[in-house]
């Protein structure tokens, strides 16, 4: 034990400096690429009209966020469209899939209706959706929802059906009801797969909203990109694109955070803390057992 204990801090420092070196390498490569781009632009190797130099993009970012401050409303519009689309599409997908997972006839009957829209490119529906829903927020939300529906649906069905047969028998041998098997085994067992589907849907939601805006809209990030590109203000168009990258990153981080909370048992780093929390919740029971000394040796 003492050997490992002594080895750990040393190892951590070593990996710490390796990590620092890696970050430094990344930064150097990134700066080199940007510098090459900037130089290429200044030396006239790149057409400045269509490929703006990095410094011009940075200036544009400053302009649209600080000087003009015109991006916030559009950012908000796209954010709301994508979020609403995600919530509607994903909850419909997960909900229907759960019903399909617990009800075999339902699963059989909806199968063809699921397959057909799945093999149809959903974005092709955009003009029809605009015809039905007009030019406001709703067609964009509808497209985002339509695109968001399938990954959570397919993943949830898969997760619901993918239950270990032995575990199911174990529940049955304990006299568990169908309802208990669903809540205590099937659903938590499907959670990692469901979350994976939701993560995919989250990034698709943004794409759906943008496609809708490109086709017909007078507000939103896609409208800004259109407007700037048409007026050959490429630097600003890139600045808006960078903002979309940031929004996508925000979604991604949010999904990762939710994943680590909801399916915590897939995240080894969280197990010890949660175990300690649950131990504290049962402290009263443990206290009556006398002082807890871990076994001297780890059992096999």
């Amino acid at each position, binding site marked *: 034990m003492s050997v490992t204990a002594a080895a750990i801090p040393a190892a951590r420092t070593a990996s710490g400096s390796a990590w620092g070196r890696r970050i430094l390498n990344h930064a150097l490569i990134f700066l080199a690429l940007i510098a090459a781009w900037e130089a290429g632009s200044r030396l006239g190797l790149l057409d400045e009209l269509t490929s703006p130099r990095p410094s011009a993009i940075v200036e544009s970012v400053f302009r649209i966020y600080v000087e003009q401050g015109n991006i916030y409303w559009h950012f908000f519009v796209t954010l709301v469209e994508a979020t609403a689309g995600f919530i509607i599409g994903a909850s419909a997908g997960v909900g229907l899939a759960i019903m399909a997972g617990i009800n075999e006839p339902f699963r059989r009957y909806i199968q063809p209706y699921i397959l057909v829209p799945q093999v149809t490119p959903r974005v092709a529906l955009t003009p029809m959706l605009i015809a039905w829903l007009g030019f406001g927020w709703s067609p964009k939300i509808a497209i985002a929802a339509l695109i968001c529906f399938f990954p959570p649906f397919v993943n949830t069905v898969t997760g619901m059906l993918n239950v270990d047969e032995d575990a199911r028998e174990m529940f049955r041998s304990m*006299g568990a009801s169908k309802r208990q098997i669903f809540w*205590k085994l099937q659903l938590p067992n499907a959670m990692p797969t469901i979350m994976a589907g939701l993560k995919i849907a989250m990034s698709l939601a943004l794409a759906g909203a943008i496609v809708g805006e490109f086709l017909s809209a007078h507000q939103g990030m896609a409208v800004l990109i259109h407007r700037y590109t048409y007026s050959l203000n490429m630097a600003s168009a890139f600045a808006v694109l960078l903002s979309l990258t940031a929004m996508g990153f925000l979604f991604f981080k949010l999904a990762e955070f939710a994943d680590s909370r909801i399916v915590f*048992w897939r995240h080894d780093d969280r*197990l010890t803390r949660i175990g300690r929390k649950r131990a504290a919740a049962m402290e*009263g*029971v*443990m206290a009556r057992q006398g002082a807890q*000394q*871990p076994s001297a040796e780890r*059992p096999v």
Partner: protein
Amino acid sequence: MAAVVQTLSQAAPSPAQQARPIVIEGDRVTKIFSETVVALEGATFSVPKSSFVSLVGPSGCGKSTLLRLVAGLIPLTSGALFVHGQAVGAPRKDVGMMFQKATLLDWRTAVENVLLPTEIGGSVTWEDKRRAIDLLHLVGLKGFEFSFPRQLSGGMQQRVALARLLQTGADILLLDEPFGALDEFTRERLNLELLRIVAEVQATTLFVTHNIAEAIFLADHVIVMTPRPGRLAAMVDVPFARPREIALQQTPEFNAMVSEVRGILGGHA
């Protein structure tokens, strides 16, 4: 020390069996899955209270099928099967089962896994929690009550599964190769602890294995089974005194008995 071998058709209960009440009784139990698959044919047997019975035989001999029939998980095709004198039709509270896979729920700590049968049966009391922790200590997991399955070794996971089985309060334990997926050393140690634990809780145990030495080492009686169709070939009484030590497996008497069972299995093993 000669082993007592009986062919099952003329099985007369030994004096030791007569002294104890019979808790599991099968009369020509037959299970046919489809016209071509006869999993178990005409199994007649009886298991006395608090005894340890091993079912040994090659794959396809119907030993797991017999276990699942006793557990009430699948219906039998013909014959009769009684637990505590009542015909088996559905899972019973006094019969618990354990598999080769630990089948623990990854999102629950060890003690929460042990409490699962109590939760399924109704609400969990303070007393249940105390008992769950006691059982984890009984199976040697003191200090690991709040570890998650992913943090435990395969052997420790099976220990949790055993504690969960005991938490059901069942006095009939059906074990389907419970340590079959573990390495030799771990399995040997867990077998010894299993013997200690079932003796302590005075459970009646049916233990399925395909390892002849393991079957004999653990059991009071070994039921030898042959495949296609699954049949009970013989019941062998194991006379060795308890508690048993690993060294028993090196004695000539033990090896003689292993050869005897191997002989019964004949061309099947």
